[in-house]
């Protein structure tokens, strides 16, 4: 099980921290000639007005607006965030903060087909591990990745509320039930052949390897990665602790010690300091 990539919705990393982030030059007052987003924005005005009319406060339309732009662009672009901020009268930072919380709002382009396999309990009891392994193998990608041709994105998700027909999955949010490795292969073959039973998602930009922003650090601190002093190691159970542990084990003076003994020693240090309080 790889952990490093397991970023999630709660990670709110500002895109300016990211080398690939786009900066929007969208303005409600200037129409950029030939710009696809500006054309879309003008076209969607009636739908935007309808959404605003559903709520007592404009901000409630924030998520529906993000969904609306995503439906047309395939993801929530920097332009869309700027436009939403203008429509609901909030800052772009505030919109970004909300959008980054939700797993079904993508801030980077995804494939034309989003395959989401359930990894929760009832599916697990009925063979989800095999289904996931088979899907990864067939697609040639890992959890939270898109195939190199930009066609299919793959994610392992939590309970989809279809446990009576486990193992289950969704393709573009349409349910697929009673999965077997063979059904997975048929499904993916159909998606690749371009004759699927599922409508493709909008795709206005070529997706990268993953749609997650800052997929490496996720929500938790990377802590002591790269630190050589064992006393500065992060938590024993977390990724930084494991990286630290590997560093320690790799040092000549520790070569003769077993993993068990090393762990006991580092654990004892932690307990001693806790007892001191």
């Amino acid at each position, binding site marked *: *099980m790889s*952990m490093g990539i*397991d970023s*999630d*919705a*709660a990670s709110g990393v500002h895109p300016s921290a990211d080398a690939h982030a786009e900066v929007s030059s969208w303005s409600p007052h200037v129409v950029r000639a030939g710009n696809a987003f500006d054309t879309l924005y003008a076209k969607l005005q009636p739908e935007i007005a309808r959404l605003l009319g*559903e*709520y*007592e*406060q404009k*901000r*409630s*339309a*924030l*998520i*529906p607006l*993000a*969904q609306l732009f995503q439906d047309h662009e395939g993801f929530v672009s920097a332009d869309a965030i700027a436009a939403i901020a203008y429509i*609901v009268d*909030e800052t772009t930072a505030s919109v970004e*903060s*909300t959008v980054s*919380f*939700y*797993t*079904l*709002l993508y801030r980077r382009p995804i494939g034309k087909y989003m395959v989401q396999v359930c*990894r*929760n*309990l*009832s599916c*697990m*009891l*009925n063979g989800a591990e095999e289904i996931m392994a088979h899907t990864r193998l067939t697609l040639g990608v890992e959890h939270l990745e898109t195939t190199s041709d930009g066609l299919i994105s793959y994610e392992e998700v*939590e*309970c*989809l*509320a*279809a*446990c*009576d*027909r*486990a193992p289950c999955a*969704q393709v573009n*949010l*349409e*349910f697929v039930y009673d999965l077997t490795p063979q059904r997975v292969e048929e499904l993916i073959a159909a998606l690749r052949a371009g004759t699927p039973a599922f409508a493709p998602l909008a795709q206005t930009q070529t997706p990268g390897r993953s749609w997650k922003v800052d997929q490496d650090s996720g*929500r*938790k601190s990377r802590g002591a990665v790269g630190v050589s002093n064992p006393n500065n190691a992060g*938590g024993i*159970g*977390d*990724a930084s602790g*494991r990286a630290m542990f590997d560093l320690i084990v790799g040092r000549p003076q520790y070569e003769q010690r*077993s*993993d*068990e003994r090393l*762990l*006991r020693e580092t*654990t004892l240090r932690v307990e001693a300091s806790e007892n001191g309080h």
Partner: protein
Amino acid sequence: MAELITPVLTAGIGQQNFRDLEAYRSAGGYEQLRRAVVEMTPKDVADICSGSNLRGRGGAGFPTGKKWSFLPNNGRPRYLVCNCDEAEPGTFKDHMLLEETPHQIIEGILLGAYAIGCDHAFIYIRGEFKRGYEIMRDALAQARAAGFEGENVFGTGKKLRLTIHRGAGAYICGEETGLLNSLEGRRGEPRLKPPFPAVKGLYGEPTVVNNVETLAYLPYIMRNGAEWFAKAGPERSPGFKIVSISGHVVKPGNYEVAMGTTIRQLIYECAGGLRPGRSFRGVQPGGGSSACLFEEHLDVPYDFDSVAKAGSMLGSGAMVVFDDTTDFVKAAYTLIRFYSHESCGQCTPCREGGSWIERSLERLLAGGGLDSDIDVIKSAAHQLTGLNLCALGDSIEPFLASVITRYEDQFRAYVPRAAVAS
């Protein structure tokens, strides 16, 4: 079996297309809403609900009538929000109701809204239920065209509006204050309570959040009377309940029964029992947040109080059954990973505790665990409960604690013994 199942909300599903307004009306649909709006006062409707002793079907089991009674009479606008953000592991009842009987839900919501004096209600539908959302949208358009919803319902001049709101992927939005934040266009982070939503909810106004199943029972309670509902099942936990049964059973599915049916009846008579040759090892009686129950609990009546007395909870009414092939370490890891993933990150015990246990279990499963890990997991689990803004943090521990106590040998078996010997 036949007499165990008591279809109320599930009556006719699979035989009739209740997505169609006329089909629903010919089965008596919207008649109770008409009666309420045209002939009754809101208080009459609220009194019938209170008299039925209906308790919330979303997880906490709070008496619905009492929840409504907490709304202050301050002349402010009031809101009713129907919680259809079903995402509790093992639960799939609202998913079915949404796709099969959308009009029943609309009628229930509008009855609830009328009863509490709210003229604009909301239904928050889980983002993954795209098809359910479309079905609900079409059903609402039919109801609106027929004059059952809108600015002038049944020609009375009264306003009862319903807005459908789609979520965007976050389990925590099933928590009522997280849901309200999400509905206001914010991150779905639960709020500090008090003030409770009844006092300060949506847009800072008095708000009631009720589950889909809770509200869907209202038309039937109105039709058959409070007594009918109150007399089914135990006195303090009456009525009917859709139980979602999955896991290692022959016939997984939704079974609507009277409260107080035993867990054994549900597993062996409704869901067809275990697969041939397999034996029973445990059942999670109320979704991912509930503690596991074992052989000695099979005759516990399935109602809020009895399941709580047995040391677990009825929760959302989702039973996951485990047979002797179950790896309880993997089962616990799967659920802990879920809570760790879905933690909104506001409260340290939940955010760090959940991911810490997840990574410890992951290391154990990968063959790098220690005996001391198991002791630490056992002690750490008890330090999560009651220290968080919402119940998500409290949900991490119960299942793990129950199975690590019962099946500690399975956990110890993952510790590589050769490494210890060296």
